[in-house]
């Protein structure tokens, strides 16, 4: 029984970091654009399909697997450029509800295009040989699971350091917190917003490419993670990368331990945790200053 708990903790960490990989872009988009990007799940799914199209059922090497994830990130980042010029920039001066509706429209468009482009079949993708092994340490620890944990930590550190320590990140945060003042101070607000949108979209594509081998690939994939991602953004503190990171791990562990502690009530831990944390800290774990 003990090993089941240990395995649930390990598995919870893998799930938590997978959730963070998906929610990091959503958090960033909210932090900068102040909207919940409903289309984020769809772009995550398109990223996964892109990686599958490049690698097939199993990537021939780790290099190819990572390369496919990078291509997925670049492609979805480019979609971000189009979305910014065609939609978000045009709606900059209107109430946020309009942008929310536009994001919903992009979601429907992405789902429709994905259906035409990728078909409706379900696929499975496996990690490359370098990541396919299992380490026996009393519980079966998959190398791919460790890779997801590592990738999540790397993305977190890159965003945390990039936004809070690098000059460019500070400029982005300045625009997010007060675009009017940033404009007065001479910052190129539109360009910095474009960069943020592209980065947020690219993170969705990257998550799709890295997590494609974690579960079956179908047109439902985006929905599976999006609900967690929204929970994480709310609980973490709207727009806070650090909050999203902590919240992702909490939700991953809660979901995983739920399967062992309360197996007859699947999913109840996630919703209970959401309710409890929102009641205790309605402002979020790490409230973002710009909110």
């Amino acid at each position, binding site marked *: 029984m003990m*090993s089941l708990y240990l395995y649930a903790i390990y598995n919870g960490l893998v799930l938590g970091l997978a959730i963070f990989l998906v929610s990091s872009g959503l958090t960033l988009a909210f932090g900068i654009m102040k909207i919940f990007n409903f289309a984020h799940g769809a772009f995550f799914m398109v990223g996964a399909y892109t990686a599958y199209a490049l690698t097939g059922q199993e990537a021939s090497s780790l290099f190819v697997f990572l390369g496919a994830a990078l291509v997925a990130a670049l492609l979805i980042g480019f979609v971000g450029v189009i979305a910014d010029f065609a939609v978000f920039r045009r709606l900059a001066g209107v109430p946020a509800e309009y942008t929310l509706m536009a994001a919903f429209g992009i979601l429907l468009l992405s789902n429709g295009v994905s*259906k035409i482009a990728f078909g*409706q079949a*379900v696929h*499975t993708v*496996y990690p490359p040989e370098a990541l396919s092994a299992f380490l026996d340490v009393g519980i079966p620890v998959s190398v791919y699971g460790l890779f997801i944990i590592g990738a999540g930590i790397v993305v977190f550190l890159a965003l945390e350091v990039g936004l809070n320590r690098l000059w460019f990140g500070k400029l982005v945060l300045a625009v997010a917190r007060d675009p009017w003042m940033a404009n007065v101070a001479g910052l190129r607000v539109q360009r910095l917003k474009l960069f943020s949108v592209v980065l947020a979209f690219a993170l969705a594509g990257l998550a799709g490419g890295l997590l494609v081998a*974690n579960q*079956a690939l179908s047109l439902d994939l985006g929905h599976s*993670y999006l609900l967690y991602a929204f929970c994480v953004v709310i609980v973490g503190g709207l727009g806070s990368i650090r909050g999203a990171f902590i919240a992702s791990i909490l939700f991953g562990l809660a979901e995983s331990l739920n399967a062992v502690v309360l*197996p007859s009530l699947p999913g109840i831990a996630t919703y209970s945790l959401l309710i409890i944390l929102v009641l205790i800290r309605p402002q979020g774990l790490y409230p973002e200053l710009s909110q």
Partner: protein
Amino acid sequence: MRTNRRQFIGGALGLGALSAFPISAIAQSGGTIKIGLITSLQGGYAAFGQNHQRGAQFAVDEINAAGGIGGKKLELVVRDDGLKPDIGIAAARELAADGVRIFTGGLVSGVVLALNGIMGELDSIFVSAAAHGNNLTHEDFKPNYFRVTDYSAMRVGAGSHLVAQRYKDAKVWGSIAPDAEIGRSVMEVVNFHLPRAYKELHGAEVKMTETLWTKFGATDYRNEIARLMSQGIDGLIVGLGGADETTFLQQAGQLGLTKKIQGFFTSGSEFLGAIALKERTPENYWSGFHWYYGAYPDNPIAKRVVDTFREKGYGKHPDGFVGMTHAAISAISAALAKGAGETSKELIPALEGMSFDSVKGKITLRKEDHQAISDVNYALLGPAKNEDGWEVVDFARVDGEPFAGAPTPGQPLKFG
């Protein structure tokens, strides 16, 4: 004479009314009988919905090519229910407003349950071609509902009997199912039939471990898999479906569960898992089918459907969803050919107790609860070094009648 704006609008409205009325009247009386197909064309079940559409269209084309019914052509009108009852109902109401009185499709029991609730009000019938819930022909039975395929009690009962036959030495069985009506329904049937089958066939007791309940759309079954591996099971019942089942099989294969057990069966994802897993398809994987075409090599209707499916370039393997909407249209056309009109008052008595030819041979729609009495199909799928990466190793065509239970419309199905 100048025409003012009021005259223009009045004239246009009048012209519109005059032109629209006769066109609509001609459409209903002159040439076509519209059949509404409501199925799920989005998400993880979309491939099944697409095949629903194909099978129904094949049947409509065949009937129209043979001259239609009483000189009238059939016309298929397709709507997506988005796997949601409210969208399904909106689609049915929209089609009914357009004169549709005959509906088929129905992938998910929850959507079909909602649709059944309005069929009487719309003076329509629903001939379901997939939804499996026991409740639909028992406690939630509606007279305007017919089901041309087997249902959970038959499918899972037959599957339990099949694995008891094939895996004599498997004495401990585990199970995983979604925490929803369909999952509970599957497990109720298994818990009754599997121990009984072992007792009858081998005089042996079988142990059923605690069922692991999961939520729909989960991305991670590894904890459940670890738990199943710790239970020391010999066999496994998988009540998941669609992409969920594929995710489970993928992760169970990676963690070694599928190699550890003697055999397992899933009730209804047909070829979906094998198509996704390819050469990683487990070797002991019995998949349930609404219709497995390979089990009917001498049936001319089945042969025609398979040939059409391949000629149209849809692939090599038509699944049961193709077969069952084809069967639904066959049932409807047989009732219409008997002289029934398009109203539910005429169609219901025509369909009740009717036997008709289908891809599965003769199917009878039981008079009391409108449930099809037919074969139940399973196929043993496995990996292969061929173009598909998988193959059908064996199949079973089980008589479904002993597992159908007594008809109890309005009452829950009772076991024991």
